C-alpha cells in the first residue's frame, strides 16, 4: 500500500518539466525541418524564425507591429469595457432598462466582429479608428452580457443593507454592485481581452499598414513563411504578457479576498 501514496511534486520540479517539454518540442520541430521531410516554404524551422526575428528587430519594424496591435486592442477593449460595465450593471438591475435594450442586444449578439469590417471600412477608411471600432464591436456585446450576468452574483441582502443605510439608487450601483461584482467582472474581462485580440488580428488581416495581423498577411504575400510563423508566435507571446499584467491588476483590485 505504501507506494500508492506518492510524495507531491514541488512547484519547482514541475516548472522544470514544462521547460523540458518546450525544449523537446522545439528540438523535434527543428529536426523534422532539417531532415528535409518538410519544405521550409510550408514550415520553417525555429532557427529560421529566430533569424527573421533578429533581422526585423534590427530594422526596427518588429516592435512597431507589436505595439500597433497592442495599442488597438487596448483602446478598443478599454472603450468597450468602459461602456459595458456601467451599462451592464444598470441593465442587470433594472427590468425596464432590460426591456428597452434587449432587442438591440439580441440583434447585435450573433454578429461576428468580422461582419463589421466592410461597413467600418466604408465609414472610417483604413485607419486607426476603423481598427478600434472592430475591436469595440467584437468585445462590447460579450462584455455587456458578462457584466449583466455578474450582477446576479450579488447577495440581495447587501443591497438592502446599503439602502437601509441611506444609499440612493446610483450609490447602490457604484458602492455595492460594482465592487461586489468585481471578481466576476474581472474574470469575464480576461476572456473578453482574449476576444479583443482575435478581433484586431482579423481586422489587420483584411486591411492594415502595420500590426501583427498585417505582418502575417504580408509575409504570406512574399512567401516569407518564417515571417508568418514569427507573427503567430508574437501574437501568442503578447497575449500571454497582457494576461500577466491583468492578473497583477486583479490581485491588487481584489486584495480583500485574501
Amino acid at each position: 500500500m505504501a507506494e500508492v501514496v506518492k510524495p507531491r511534486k514541488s512547484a519547482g520540479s514541475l516548472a522544470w518539466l514544462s521547460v523540458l517539454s518546450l525544449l523537446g518540442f522545439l528540438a523535434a520541430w527543428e529536426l523534422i525541418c532539417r531532415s528535409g521531410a518538410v519544405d521550409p516554404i510550408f514550415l520553417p524551422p525555429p532557427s529560421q524564425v529566430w533569424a527573421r526575428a533578429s533581422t526585423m528587430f534590427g530594422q526596427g519594424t518588429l516592435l512597431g507591429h507589436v505595439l500597433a496591435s497592442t495599442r488597438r486592442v487596448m483602446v478598443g477593449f478599454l472603450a468597450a469595457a468602459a461602456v459595458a460595465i456601467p451599462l451592464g450593471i444598470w441593465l442587470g438591475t433594472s427590468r425596464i432598462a432590460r426591456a428597452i435594450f434587449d432587442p438591440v442586444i439580441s440583434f447585435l449578439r450573433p454578429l461576428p466582429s468580422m461582419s463589421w469590417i466592410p461597413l467600418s471600412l466604408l465609414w472610417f477608411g483604413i485607419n486607426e479608428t476603423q481598427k478600434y471600432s472592430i475591436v469595440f464591436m467584437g468585445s462590447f456585446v460579450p462584455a455587456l452580457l458578462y457584466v449583466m450576468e455578474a450582477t446576479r452574483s450579488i447577495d440581495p441582502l447587501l443591497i438592502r443593507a446599503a439602502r437601509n443605510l441611506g444609499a440612493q439608487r446610483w450609490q447602490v450601483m457604484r458602492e455595492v454592485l460594482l465592487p461586489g461584482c468585481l471578481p466576476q467582472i474581472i474574470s469575464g474581462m480576461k476572456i473578453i481581452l482574449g476576444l479583443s485580440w482575435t478581433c484586431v488580428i482579423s481586422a489587420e488581416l483584411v486591411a492594415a499598414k502595420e500590426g501583427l495581423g498585417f505582418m502575417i498577411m504580408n509575409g504570406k504575400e512574399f512567401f516569407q513563411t518564417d515571417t508568418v510563423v514569427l507573427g503567430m508566435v508574437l501574437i501568442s507571446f503578447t497575449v500571454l504578457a497582457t494576461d500577466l499584467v491583468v492578473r497583477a491588476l486583479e490581485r491588487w483590485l481584489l486584495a480583500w479576498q485574501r
Partner: protein
Amino acid sequence: MTTSMISIRGVSKSFGDNHVLSNLDLEVKKGEFLVLLGASGCGKSTLLNLMAGFEKPTQGSVSVNGKRIDDVTSACGMVFQQYALFPWQTVQQNVEFGLKMKKMPKGERAEIARRFIEMVGLKGSEDKYPQALSGGMKQRVSIARVLANDPDVMLFDEPFAALDAMTRQVLQDQLLSIYEQSGKTIVFITHSIDEALMLSTRMVIMGSRPGRVVQDLRNELPHPRTAEIQLSEDFISLKRSIWETVQEEVGRTLAVTRG
C-alpha cells in the same frame, strides 16, 4: 411626557392569499426597548420590514418619528441576522458607509466611525476585512455601522440567533449598555423568551395566522440584568406567563393547520 416614536395603525399585509398581518395597531414610545416575541411565521419579520420600508403595508400606515414610511428609510437602521457586511470593505469602511452616502467629509466620518468601533469593543480591528472576523465580531461591526448612521430607531432581526451561547450573552450585555448610553428606540425580534426578558423594557407577543398582538407587557426587571436575575421570582413568573401565552398560540396554530 414620552412621545410616540413608531405608530402602526390598522396595518394589514398580505402576500397574495397569504395574510401575514391583520389590522395591527402598535405604538412604540421614544426610548423604549421593545422585543417582539413569537413563533416563526407570526409575521414579526414582516412587521420589522414594514418599519424599515422594505415592504409596504396592504392597508394602514406606518410612521416613524412623525413621518409616514413609504420607501426604504435610513431613519430605521437594521441589524440583520446574517450581518450583511460589505466583504470588500474594512471594518472602518463598513462603519463609515452610511456617513459616506450622506457625503460627510472624510475626516469627520472617520472620527465618528472610530468612536463607535470603540464603543462595540473592536478598537484595533479597524483595518480588518469581515472575513477575518468571528460571527460575534461581525455582528458588532454591523451594530456600530447602524449606530454611526444615527437613526431614530434601531431594528434587530434575530441578530444573535446564529451565534453560540457564550457570544450571545456577551453581545446581549453589550447591547444593553449601548442602549443605555445612546437612548435609542429599539425594536428587537427574537424567539427566545430568556433573551426577551434580559433585554426589553416592553414585550409584545405575537400570534400567527394572521399575525397580531396577543399580549403586550412591561418588563420592569431591575438593571443591571445579570445572570442572577434569571433566578429571581419576578423573572420566573414573567417567563411562565409568556410561556403560557406562547404555548396556547402554538397549540391553536397547530389545531388550525391540522383542521
